[in-house]
């Protein structure tokens, strides 16, 4: 599998989303609120906005 631009972009976004999940899991434990799951959701919306602008 070649590490082309698309592979790097896909893996980069996946890493960011997982990092946001871990941050939200930590915040959920500290602040005891499920609403903090909004953090990775916002990150994913950012991906959708970005990918639909790729030329």
């Amino acid at each position, binding site marked *: *599998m*070649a590490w082309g*631009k*698309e*592979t790097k*972009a*896909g*893996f980069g*976004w*996946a*890493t960011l*989303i*997982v990092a946001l*999940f871990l941050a939200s*899991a930590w915040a*959920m434990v500290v602040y005891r609120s499920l609403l903090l*799951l909004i953090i*990775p959701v916002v990150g*994913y919306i950012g*991906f*959708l906005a970005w*990918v*639909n602008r*790729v*030329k």
Partner: protein
Amino acid sequence: MVEAIDVVYISLRWVHFFGGITWIGILYYFNFVQVPTFKELDGPTKNILIPRLVKRALFWFRWAAVVTVLAGWLYFFTRYFADGQPANITRIWWYVSILIGGLIGTFMLLNVWGVIWPNQKRIIAATEGLAKGKPVPPEMAKWGKRALIASRMNLALSLPLLFFMGSAGHLPIVLG
């Protein structure tokens, strides 16, 4: 004695596993087999394969994704409402772990239906049009890039997804 709810759990888990193996299996086929193979093929060969092989693979891929995620969420909420509030840290971790895995899987489903399939559908239509003498649309390369980025993202996300799903019942025991 087997209770009715256990039959429901087993059925939902079976459907979830069947759908998940089909979905992620085809995802790995796309990423590890089809994409590198297509790079070696010439245009006319790809034009034969896209409306046949790729179209068929995408049918099973996208619907298996729907079945997997629906069965998964149905199992999660059935279990949550039947069990009530988790009583100890092992059960709490099970819910957190499955919840994170389930949300990652839901993002992957959105990638399938929101990015991969819409772009691949355009590529298939353009390839079918080519056989009828229509010109290749200039946006074709852009559609392919968008679908590939989302497919690579799903490939990467499948690893933490499998970790959180697979470790849900085991990690608290491993960590003591």
